[in-house]
């Protein structure tokens, strides 16, 4: 079941989902919230001109995306300039300015989706990975730590699209999860597990 604006607001009031800063009233719709673009991106280099190996193996058990991105992307902070021109066929990584948290006990998951105004220009904000699982950004020991959403931004249109810091870049749709996931379940198993972990750690310094 998709949450409507009133249910989203109620969930925020009871801390079942957290967003900081809370989007301004004009960023809400009946069943979604718009999030805005932050000022830093990672821009992919063209491997054919950079003379780099372009075959990657993401199925490798120890695949490290950060290492790959350090070789194949540039960091661009366009905060001072105020905009970034996304050229046709260009692909970048961006982040939402807003940070979110979905405590798993709240039974709320979310999907990040594009906006039709940008889609019809040929721009997308994710590459088939829209799911934000229940529990995203949640650590009860640090409830004030929230996480931004990483966006995979691409332009398959024929025109250059100017991205402006703070523009509405995507929408977030919240869905109710039926039942409590194993990850958040507290039953007899929990005490057995805690006993074993405590026993295994008692002689461990750290």
């Amino acid at each position, binding site marked *: 079941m998709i949450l409507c604006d009133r249910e989203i607001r109620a969930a925020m009031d009871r801390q079942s989902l957290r967003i900081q800063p809370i989007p301004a009233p004009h960023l809400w719709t009946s069943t979604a919230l718009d999030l805005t673009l932050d000022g830093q991106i990672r821009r992919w280099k063209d491997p054919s001109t950079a003379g780099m190996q372009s075959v990657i193996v*993401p199925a490798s058990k120890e695949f490290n995306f950060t290492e790959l991105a350090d070789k194949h992307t540039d960091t661009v902070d366009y905060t001072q300039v105020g905009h970034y021109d996304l050229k046709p066929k260009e692909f970048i990584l961006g982040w939402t300015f807003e940070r979110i948290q979905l405590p798993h006990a709240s039974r709320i998951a979310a999907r990040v989706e594009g906006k039709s105004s940008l889609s019809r220009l040929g721009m997308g904000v994710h590459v088939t990975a829209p799911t934000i699982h229940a529990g995203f950004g949640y*650590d009860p020991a640090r409830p004030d730590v929230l996480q931004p959403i990483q966006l995979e931004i691409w332009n398959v249109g024929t025109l250059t699209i100017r991205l402006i810091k703070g523009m509405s870049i995507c929408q977030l749709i919240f869905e109710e999860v039926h039942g409590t996931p*194993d990850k958040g379940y507290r039953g007899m198993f929990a005490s057995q597990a805690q006993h074993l972990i405590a026993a295994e750690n008692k002689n461990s310094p750290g």
Partner: protein
Amino acid sequence: MYYVACEVTGGLRESEATVSVEDVDGAKAFLRVERDFVHKPNGQAYLPIGLIHVDQQAKTALIELPHEADSGVNRLWVNVDKLKLANQIEQLV
């Protein structure tokens, strides 16, 4: 809440960290999280995770990472001695 020992390196931005979690075979699963998400009570870094199952005999645990790792896994088996309980982390601070 449970935590797993991890190693920390830089992320894609200042606020991010890349963490790696070693599984029972010694393979490392990499993922990026906000730097403040990682606990470092005594120099050793710990990542909050979900605990799915414990094999009492093998002393291994199936954990769920905060989100999908670069290799595509969400869950992996780790040795129980890599895990900490929330109160153990607090005691180390």
